């Protein structure tokens, strides 16, 4: 088995020990296509109200307030994007009753029906499966979303997994954590005893273990298993058991330019600039904003970032000048590639090569002593 790499981390970048909330955005911006039909009856909307459907996915209002207009803004990739602007009235009027306390769910026929018919979720992936694998790991350095989720909601996550096992008749549930995430392991260990169908799997802190291809080297991940992330399971719990729409996400705001990195709970559709002004302090002002990963992220303009469900981490990294120099033929790019692609050869050809197997994990560029941006020469299916 090919040896995988552990990404070394700067010990001084330590996330604060509690979740911070920023749930009071003045305006919420939800990405919309001008052709999407608004499904609201009046301009005043309640929290959790279905606003429109885009590519079959329902978009629900994360706040109660007034729908203003569709605006054109730049998105995090710097491209033009339309957003539906909702003015928050801070009333948090909820269209769902919601259940506030932790409840033990009884698996009745009605409940099974409710799960199976729940919209906006592809339940077919649970069909004829033998095992659910919970991915409780974070690949990208300094991200702590899942650790905090486990810390506060381990009981709920395990309950939802148990429900899924019962509803879809899946006998085995494996919970995967990285060996260095002691906090998650200890929290989950406190609850796992009540679930005989669940087992714990501690995996090494190697990159990119979250990728299915890599995970399958440590435990059988095949057609008979379904992999779910902790966030996905918790969202299902909230939506199905608590009957609340997802209105907020956890994001890690970190980097060597900030004084204290934090995990912040923030309403979907909030401009990042607002969150940062309200929650973060900086050691250095000369930073660049990187979204979703130091090894596979994109650099972005802070004004252009609207919090969406796909943003998990924003890095504020002190700008460093890295010079690209000539290849020294060390071969490390080929050596570290977890799926045995040949980035070195792609570089030799000086053109963009598409390799079906490439995970776009960025390890080859990370390891290159000449700082050659190998991602310019090799890419995977997404190219």
């Amino acid at each position, binding site marked *: 088995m090919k040896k995988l790499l552990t*990404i*070394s981390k700067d010990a001084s970048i330590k996330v604060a020990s509690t979740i911070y909330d920023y749930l009071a955005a003045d305006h919420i911006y939800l990405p919309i296509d001008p052709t999407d039909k608004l499904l609201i009856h009046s301009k005043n909307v309640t929290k959790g109200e279905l606003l429109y459907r885009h590519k079959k996915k329902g978009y629900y209002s994360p706040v109660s307030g007034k729908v203003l207009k569709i605006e054109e803004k730049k998105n995090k990739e710097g491209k033009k994007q339309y957003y539906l602007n909702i003015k928050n009235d801070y009333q948090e009027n909820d269209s769902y009753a919601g259940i506030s306390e932790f409840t033990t769910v009884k698996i009745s026929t009605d409940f099974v029906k409710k799960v199976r018919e729940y919209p906006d979720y592809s339940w077919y992936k649970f069909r004829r499966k033998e095992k659910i694998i919970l991915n409780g790991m974070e690949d990208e*350095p300094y991200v702590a979303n899942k650790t905090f989720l486990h810390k506060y909601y381990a009981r709920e996550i395990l309950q939802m997994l148990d429900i899924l096992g019962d509803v879809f008749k899946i006998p085995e549930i494996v919970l995967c954590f990285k060996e260095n995430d002691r906090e998650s392991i200890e929290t989950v260990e406190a609850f796992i005893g009540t679930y005989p169908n669940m087992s714990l799997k501690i995996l090494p802190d190697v990159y990119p273990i979250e990728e299915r291809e890599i995970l399958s080297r440590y435990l059988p991940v095949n057609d008979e298993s379904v992999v779910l992330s902790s966030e996905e399971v918790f969202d299902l719990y909230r939506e199905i058991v608590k009957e609340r729409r997802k209105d907020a996400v956890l994001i890690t705001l970190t980097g060597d330019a900030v004084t204290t990195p934090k995990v912040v709970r923030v309403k979907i559709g909030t401009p990042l600039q607002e969150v940062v002004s309200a929650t973060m302090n900086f050691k250095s002002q000369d930073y*660049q904003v*990187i979204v*979703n*990963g*130091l*090894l*596979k*992220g*994109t*650099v972005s303009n802070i004004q252009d970032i609207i919090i969406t469900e796909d943003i998990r981490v924003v*890095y504020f*990294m002190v700008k460093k000048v*890295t010079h690209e120099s*000539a*290849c*020294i*033929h*060390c*071969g*490390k790019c*080929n*050596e570290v590639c977890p799926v045995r692609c*040949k980035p*070195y*050869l*792609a570089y*030799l*050809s*000086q*053109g*963009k*090569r*598409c390799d079906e197997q490439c995970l*776009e994990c*960025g390890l080859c*560029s*990370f*390891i*290159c*002593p000449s*700082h050659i*941006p190998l*991602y*310019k020469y*090799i*890419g*995977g299916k*997404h*190219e």
Partner: protein
Amino acid sequence: MSKVFVYFEQNTKKIQWAIFGSFLVLAFYGAYKNGFTYYFQGLLSFVDAMKFLLFPFIGLLGAFFYGVILSKKLQFSLEYAIEGVLLALFMPVRFPIWCFIVLVILYFGLKNLWQKKLSTISLLCFMKVLSMVLSKFVFFIDYQNVIETSYPYLYGITDAFFGRGVGAYGTTSIFLILVCYVAFCSDYYYKRELPVYILGSFLLLETAYVLFVTHENLLLTLLNSHIFFASIVLAPMKNHSPAESKYLLIFGLFVGIGSFLLNAFFDFSDGIYIVLLFAQILWTLALSFQKLYYQKTLVKQKD
């Protein structure tokens, strides 16, 4: 694909100091072995013994002149210093100092241009081969020092291992070279498997040859300091050997087998430098073909 914003970092300065330090140890050992031991035995004057320190000193002076004064850099580059001492290490002990100065000037003068045009061929290796040619055909000297040429000597296995044997100025001690290997291995980018391929193939063939053909003292024949030095220090240097593991293996075997052939059949104990240079030239050519081939396949992929 998205960008990468962090890079693997190792403490390059620390590694360079470790390499520089180990080279200095080799250089001091060279001065001790070829000069001071004889001075203590009353065979050399103190001044003559001190002369041996001139080799690394000139190398360092050249490095300082080119690396600081000519390039107008304020900081002394360790890379230059390492190369300056390295040049001294593989010189025959009786190599004329004036000619060594010329080689140092030539080396540092050519360094930048060579790196631009012929980056995959080692200029150090080229300089070594040049010094071998000059020694053999112009100065008619071998690797013996003045005392070794005048007194009969018989070296044992421990002598050969610890460096009392005949060899270039700073390369006789296999023990110290192996210590250098440990220092080099702290560099993540050092191709540690290459010395294994070269030494493995050379030692295996040489063993078979000695056992079945010459019946000489096996261990003494195997302890060839040129092979150890070139395979551990010169061959794995950045830029100068293939990146892909299978080609690196071929490269290593080629150098190992070539060195054995030159050593066994042409009595070139230091033939490894020639083979290494030749292997680098061949690899450079192969690399150009490989580039062409991949560019062509890329065009096809686009089609």
